[in-house]
């Protein structure tokens, strides 16, 4: 009973601190000379402005009986333009129109540049995650291999990649390797992120494999399994389970690090944020939105890995 009361008290302290920080940020925002205009940001997330459909030539408009189709018959005698996708007609049957006149409007919503950037960030992170996992596994296995060539290559790889900044690696990948191999921006970005993350994944996987008792490998080999089979069926499944928490951390870093590819003009979430700032003049709102979206991504990832951990813990 007593310990329960104490828990209540400290939970109350927690919420008080959080609310306190929230209020200070809010008041700080009020004090500075800045007009908060959150409404300016929304069109860049979801754009609900109608799209106007304009006439491509001078000509005559024909609208069919059930208003489902607008036909523009050009005066020049060219083929007619048929418009079927629209919500509101702004002309009537038989109107004469000039090139550039608005014939109809299409309502609805489209994704704005911030969401486009978010999608690019998700794509880059997802590709990089998969490549980094495969490459990291390979390097990690080389790192513990009995073959000196494989082992030393892995050590050099890990030391070089971990010893240089990611930003510099992205520049080298894009300007040097990208030029030599004629890689696209997006590919250069994905490769740089994968190569960088793989070095950390390799060390995590090495530690995971080495944490499995030797007896497991001996038992597997004594049953006639080859080294690769023992790895695949016995060692790696156990090591994978143990490495999930550090791998989750590494992949959360990957999502955050992906913001650096904006320096080679990939329009990811961060680059989109920068562009929207100059279009909306609402830098504070935009950057808070961008931060929130990154938090959403990393949150979803860490939540799903926790779910996976729970499922794999059946045998504990």
């Amino acid at each position, binding site marked *: 009973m007593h310990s329960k009361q104490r828990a209540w008290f400290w939970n109350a302290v927690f919420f008080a601190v959080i609310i306190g920080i929230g209020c200070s940020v809010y008041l700080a925002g009020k004090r500075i000379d800045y007009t908060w205009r959150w409404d300016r940001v929304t069109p860049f997330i979801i754009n609900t402005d109608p799209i106007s459909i304009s006439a491509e030539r001078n000509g005559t408009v024909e609208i069919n009986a059930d208003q489902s189709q607008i036909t523009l018959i050009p005066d020049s005698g060219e083929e007619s333009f048929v418009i079927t996708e629209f919500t509101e007609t702004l002309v009537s049957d038989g109107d004469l129109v000039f090139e550039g006149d608005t014939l109809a409007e299409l309502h609805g919503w489209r994704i704005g540049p911030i969401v486009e950037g978010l999608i690019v960030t998700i794509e880059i992170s997802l590709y990089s995650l998969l490549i980094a996992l495969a490459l990291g596994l390979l390097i990690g296995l080389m790192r513990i291999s009995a073959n000196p060539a494989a082992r030393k290559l892995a050590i050099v790889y890990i030391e070089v990649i971990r010893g240089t900044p990611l930003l510099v690696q992205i520049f080298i990948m894009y300007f040097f390797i990208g030029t030599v191999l004629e890689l696209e921006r997006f590919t250069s970005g994905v490769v740089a992120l994968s190569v960088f993350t793989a070095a950390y994944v390799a060390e995590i996987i090495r530690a995971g494999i080495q944490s499995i*008792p030797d007896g*497991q490998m001996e*038992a597997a*080999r004594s*049953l*006639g*399994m080859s080294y690769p*089979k023992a790895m695949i069926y016995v060692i790696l499944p156990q090591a994978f389970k143990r490495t999930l928490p550090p791998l989750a951390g590494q992949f959360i870093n990957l999502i955050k690090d992906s913001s650096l590819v904006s320096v080679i003009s990939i329009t990811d979430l961060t680059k989109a944020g920068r562009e929207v700032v100059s279009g909306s003049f609402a830098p504070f709102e935009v950057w808070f939105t961008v931060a929130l979206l990154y938090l959403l991504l990393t949150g979803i990832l860490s939540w799903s890995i926790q779910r996976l951990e729970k499922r794999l813990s059946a045998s*504990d």
Partner: protein
Amino acid sequence: MTNTPDDMIVAKNVDKYFGELHALKDVSATVKRGEVVVIVGPSGSGKSTFLRTLNQLEEIDSGSLMIDGTDMYARDTNINKLREHVGMVFQSFNLFPHKTALENVKLAPLKVSGRAEAEVHESAKELMYKVGLAERMDNYPSQLSGGQQQRVAIARALAMKPSIMLFDEPTSALDPEMVGEVLDVMKGLANEGMTMVVVTHEMGFAREVADRVLFMEEGALLVDKKPDAFFDNPDHPRLKQFLSKVL
């Protein structure tokens, strides 16, 4: 010393070093088909090391090893193939913790021998029955007692249909009340005519089940006798000293 078709294990002049340590000193021994050979000796005497050379978990530095007529160190010997015929049971069980008891038994027949799932499933269930664990098949190792885990480990080794079984102190990690259940399974195997090499401290088991008992000390094989002679008339001074401590 010529090999007859009944020689399952022939070790000749086996030497093994761990760095400076001379772990096996010129060990020669023969195990015939259906024989149960128990190796005893003080800890650090090399008995486990010798056992582990018999399926090449330890490589030897000189000498030769013939397993069921195959020279283990011949150029064309596939060690993985050879190991399929030599089952091993470890002191610490070494069950695969991410798989259920039944899956532990099924893994090698499925992935190594490539036998059909239905057939492997049936024979694995039979083995679980044989070691008295039919009700615990779907439990994970962490949900089993030490004695139960060791019996699963025996079933797992038997699933490869080995012609030789090696036991490396199979009861040393068990609580005393669980030793009996494991020894019973081993006795059953011995009665079926399985060729067995057992490293153990269970002198009762050695006396009751063994066809021959070997005594090792400091890497050397000092005594190789039938159990009666071994226990009742120990003539080697080192063996006398050892038996006076353990009996």
